[in-house]
């Protein structure tokens, strides 16, 4: 393994630990928004798709990359929007005057 690969592995594992700490504090109340939020965040594969679609390595790469961009964008845009729509619904009790 190269030095870069070791660093990547560190990053992955540390992110996993941080993720575990952060996500174990999410109450069951918000488990659905959590799923849809991580869906949106996993739309980060958009970043990889952009490079594939835009770096001009032949038609196959460009077209498949374009499809990947579309799929990832649906997740990013749809994911963040629907998470917001859901979180907006969670309201406190309104005290009557």
């Amino acid at each position, binding site marked *: *393994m190269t030095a870069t*690969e070791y660093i*990547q592995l560190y990053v*992955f594992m540390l*992110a*996993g630990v*941080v*993720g575990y700490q*952060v*996500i174990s504090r999410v*109450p*069951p*109340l918000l*488990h*659905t*928004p*959590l*799923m*849809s939020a*991580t869906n*949106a*965040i*996993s*739309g*980060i*594969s*958009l970043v990889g*798709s*952009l*490079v594939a*679609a*835009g*770096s001009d*390595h*032949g038609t*196959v*790469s460009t077209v*498949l*990359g374009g499809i*990947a*961009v*579309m*799929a*990832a*964008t*649906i997740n*990013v*845009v*749809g*994911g*963040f*929007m*629907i998470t917001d729509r*859901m*979180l*907006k*619904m*969670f309201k*406190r009790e*309104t005290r009557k005057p």
Partner: protein
Amino acid sequence: MRELVTQAAYLAASLLFILGLRSLSSPAKARRGMQQAALGMLLAVVGTLVQQEIVRYEWIAGGMAVGAIIGAAMAIYMPMTAMPQRIAVSHSLGAVAATLVGVIEYYRHGADVGRGKMVVLGFEVLFGALTVTGSLMAFGKLQELLPTRPITYRFQNFLNLTLFAVAIGLFGWLIYDASSSIVFYTMLALGGTLGVLMVLPIGGADMPVVLSLLNSYAGLASAATGFALNNNVLIIAGALDGTSGFLLSMLMSKAMNRSFANVLFGAFGAVPSGGGAATSVAGLTVRSLSAEDAAAQIAYARSLIIVPGYGMAVAQAQREVRELADIVTKKGGDVKYAIHPVAGRMPGHMNVLLAEADVPYEQLYDMDAINDHFERTDVALVVGANDVVNPAARNDRGSPIYGMPILNVDRAKSVIVLKRSMNPGFAGIENELFYKAQTTMVFGDARATIKLLVQAAKEL
């Protein structure tokens, strides 16, 4: 300089993602935090687009435009009741992107791909393809395009494990010698086939575990993409997604008192349980109640706990449920909702539906928080829940659900169960709760029944 901009954007994005997920620990902060995470995503995209490598924009622009329109339309017009399906579809789409990027990498580099990179590419397309088709299967089951009951056949597990072993074997071959593209695409196809076969034997009630598990796989595929492209924000976001899905599937399995292996290979509910498993019901009768009597009992309860289940989601009765709760509150009663972790088809399903019906979230209680309240409760109203309130999980060692944590509904002073018919629940097990002395049943569609209850309660 460009590289610096990109890396700074990625670092900011990673931090905003973590803070966004952190904000989900409280409903009051969550919205703000997720908006910041969305900003992080925007930064990451901009940071990528300034890279030198990117020279042509037409497919990028086209893909993003079409994707944004579809994504926004889905987010705006899709009813909340279709949330489990949407989650399944987006797992699939996320995996499509990751898989395609992996395929492109292999297509470009082929035999020169290098061993280290082949390892991550293999993970990427194997997990990716499995998630693409597995999620589509889950979607089909949730949308009821496919039968929701588990589909089983002889030698099923044997076949699946064999295929899995073959896929792993091909993966090993590719690490040793990456030159044969036939091997690569065969492995890809096998991954896809495994996704289908894996979800086939999984029944509707196990969907929360499966959706969480697919969430985890989609994340791992993203992380593998990050390794392949040497991109840290992908690795971090993928790891976050992967842990989240893993954690949720652990919680869901625990809430069903079952292991992963049992969910994946057990085909729960398919095999009729042998003699002795189900409580014998001979000689016992249920007492059914008219809507008027039930309404009176509920309306004058000083304390009411509502226990929603998948039946409420199917009947879309959440608004009517809230109306009924409002009447009780107006008459001075106290209303709480008891939410079992696996009620419904995805983690948190009931909470979202009730929040949509304007139930304030302070009234929504987790199983652990509510279970001690039942003893002091006048009326427990069960709306379309069955296995999660079955005392057999506590008492009957022979029962297939023995050991599963349940809501202590049977300890309430009186129990009213709204149910479509006397058909046993998903697990095919009789529910002794229905035959208890303090239990009465109101049969019919949950929504129609609650409408009647509201009507009757208003006239009191």
